[in-house]
């Protein structure tokens, strides 16, 4: 059975041996006959139904930078801290100075944590 000009005829025989050639020809015909469908608001409808944008990776990256900055600042404070003097004071059983330093460090950490939380909001 063959089709020509919309009329179905009985088959004269099947051609063979030119499959790659036929594939190329058939692909061309199929693609040539395919219409392009205009958008007609389709894209807008899709975009309108998309869920809200999740937390951006750039924001998460910024948060990580904030933590890194706090850690770096803490490291600098520790580095610059007169540790030897404090140790000497501790050795001299200067409890009041030790308590004062501990309290100061604790306050700094609380302040930095509060700063991070405030920045994230």
């Amino acid at each position, binding site marked *: 059975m063959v089709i020509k*000009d919309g009329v179905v005829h009985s088959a004269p025989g099947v051609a063979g041996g030119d499959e790659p050639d036929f594939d190329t020809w058939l*692909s061309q015909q199929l*693609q040539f006959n395919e219409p392009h*469908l205009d958008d007609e608001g389709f894209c807008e409808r*899709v975009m309108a139904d998309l869920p809200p944008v999740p937390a951006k990776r750039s924001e998460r990256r910024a948060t990580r930078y904030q933590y890194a900055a706090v850690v770096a600042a803490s490291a600098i404070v520790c580095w610059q801290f007169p540790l030897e003097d404090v140790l000497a004071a501790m050795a001299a059983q200067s409890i009041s100075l030790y308590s004062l330093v501990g309290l100061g460090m604790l306050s700094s950490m609380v302040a930095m944590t509060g700063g991070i939380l405030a920045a994230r909001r």
Partner: protein
Amino acid sequence: MDLNDEDLIRRVVEDGDQRAYAQLVRRYQSQLRFSLRQLCNGDQGLADDMAQEAFIKAYKALPAFRGDARFSTWLYRIAYNLVMSHKRKNAPEVDQEAVDRAQAEESVEEAHQLGMARDLNSAMGELSDAQRQAVHLCMQRGFSHEEAATIMKLPLGTVKSHVNRARAKLQSLLQPWREEVAGG
């Protein structure tokens, strides 16, 4: 500037850039909607709904897209699954009115088309659904047999068999046109 799929996907996933996703939708909407119209037996409304749902589902799943396959293969697979799932759930609920309307419009258009296009459509109509889909994906969309098998959720051998049988049938049905082209 036209970015490739990978760059657009990266922008969507990393920066939440919805405009990048809109570019992907615009890039694939025509092909996907046309393919789904065939899969939905000409029901254009259903095909467009399925295409819309596929794009939304793909967007939600985009962070999990690993890039093992092309974006188009992945998108087609999502769309194909949606249509198959819909067909299973709503088998008797095909919008026959919409189908008839679409076919009527097609028949009007066909009157203006070349005989080749009309006969090609008729020949495609002689194929089974699976053969038609396999030919459409492999020979019209340019997917490999492996990609078509992934999309259709069929074994690779089955897809190859569908393509080969469809090719033989089309080769037989369209022989007069081939001879005409070959004969100049």
